[in-house]
């Protein structure tokens, strides 16, 4: 097990306490997650190279709230774009081409582009905050095989609870069960 980007967690003086089950098959990992959740383990971490709907359903994850952050950015951009145009022409009233100072139709373009720009920037900020990126330390022991074709199910804990979790992982088809204490 190594930290993302090289070096072992132990070598960096960082340790995790829990059990990691390494799976080849998605349905095995799904069954293990359901069994663990039934046994009362709610803080599972699942690692995979691609997202799987089966695992998402087993974890009962709600949709990401990033959309609300994106919406807030879009609204701020729309209001800000119009405010910039209207505010600046009123601040320095310079008539060009005999047109109205506050000409809303051309300002729609600026408002529209600003809405998309801020919506996108807020979306990025939302992603980074909610996914806790950038992260220097993985919340569980990271295995580069999770970026290839293996699925990792991490159950934090120690003692008897960790042993029972290890049995559940092995009983549901885990290729490997690694105890970290």
């Amino acid at each position, binding site marked *: 097990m190594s930290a993302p980007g*090289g070096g072992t967690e132990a070598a960096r003086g960082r340790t995790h306490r829990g059990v990691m089950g390494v799976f080849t098959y998605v349905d095995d990992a799904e069954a293990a997650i359901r069994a663990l959740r039934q046994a009362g383990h709610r803080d599972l971490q699942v690692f995979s190279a691609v997202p*799987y*709907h089966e695992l998402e359903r087993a974890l009962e994850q709600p949709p990401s709230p990033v*959309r609300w952050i994106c919406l807030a950015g879009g609204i701020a951009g729309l209001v800000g774009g119009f405010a*910039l145009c209207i505010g600046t022409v009123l601040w320095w009233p310079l008539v*060009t081409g005999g047109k109205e100072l506050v000409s809303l139709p051309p300002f729609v373009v600026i408002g529209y*582009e600003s809405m*998309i*720009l801020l919506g996108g920037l807020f*979306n990025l900020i939302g992603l980074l905050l909610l996914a806790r990126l950038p992260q220097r330390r993985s919340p569980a022991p990271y295995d580069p095989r999770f970026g290839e074709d293996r699925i990792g199910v991490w159950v934090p804990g120690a003692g008897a609870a960790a042993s029972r979790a290890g049995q559940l992982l092995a009983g549901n088809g885990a290729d490997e069960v690694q105890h970290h204490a």
Partner: protein
Amino acid sequence: MSGTLASPGAASAAGPEPRGLTARSLNEDVLRLIGRPGPVWIVAFVLDLVVLLIGALALRNEIVLGLGVGGWTRPVMWATYITNFVFWVGIAHCGTLVSAILFLFRSHFRRAVYRVAEAMTVFAVLTAGLFPLLHVGRPWFGYWLFPYPSQRGLWPNFRSPLEWDVFAVSTYLTLSAIFFLVGLIPDVAVARERVENPVLRGLYRLMSAGWTGSNRQWRHFYGAYLYFAALCTPLVLSVHSVVSWDFAMAQVPGWHNTIFAPYFVAGAIFSGVALVINLLIVIRRAFRLEHLVTLEHMEKLAKLVLLTSTIVGYSYLSEIFMAWFGPSDAERDLFLSRYFGHFWWATWTMFTCNVILPLLLWFKPVRRSMPALFVLMLFVNLGMWFERFVIIVTSLARPFEPYTWGVNYRISWTEIAVTAGAFAWFFLFFLVFVRVLPAFSITEIKETLPVPRRRQP
């Protein structure tokens, strides 16, 4: 993971899937491109630098001697530089079409090709952005284009289409770069674990931001990715519409036309897809990736070119019809001049390359022949460059006042060198990209592979 539009394995029924791949071999195939460059790449890189240097010298000449060496002649005060600007903004559109619009439409064939298209978008916008700066003559004052509270209290004119362009293109550059970099995160995390070069390893560690592929990360990643796509879709349609309004908002004959926005957007996708096809043909051949980017992928892209060619052709004919049918003598005169006047050769090059030659794509053997497709796409981009040239130069050379008609614009060596330098600038980014970053999306292609299940449902 919430927000994922298709579960892995769902693509197989919906589109072409790469053949003979496993999750592990896919990692190896894509990451094989990264690393020590071969002699062909080095020769291409050196040639590219030479052309870029020639362009830079021409640019230095123009800055020292003034814009007069750029071939501008009254009344043609927008010429090759604005042609290049519109051409490169157009090229950029394909990337967003493939990565965002086709993502929302769940068109799975995009998965194998979108990274190349997306990279092309970012590099093309970087190239396009050079030209308005060069065109204004004093590029070091380029920041005057942006609104900022200056000591004099002056602000840009937000009623001008040129200012709309500043907002549209800078928003497009920002969002397409974010979309590109965010999409790279899971793939550079895979590369981070494999690459041995310490510089690249450091770069990937930085770019992957500690990505581990946890359920929390996937959940928010795809949640955000969906909204990036949803934002980029109206953006891409608006950017070339705004570029078209640089022309259509003026009363110059040949420009003042309501068809311009859809006409420009279709033309942009047409040229962008053509360049993506060219790039993919070279990459899949050079790196032996025919099993990853299959003939089916290439054929679908060719069909997209055919579709947009018909829209562009319809627009050309519609313009001619409206000039004939409409009340404006100046408009009618302009179109006669365009097709049979001083610049007839440019107009017919445009029409032949964009409307007549793409008709060959109705034939399946042409769509599946890589040499034929490569040559045809080169002609398409030649034609699309001339389309912008025709729109800009022929209209400006034939304004309302007949006394200016005798002055005919001639392209200068400076413009030719700067244009060539712009191509070199674009390809410089691209050459580095294919050697440094994963040029194909490992994650998204992996999603097209069969889901590993012990018990088949």
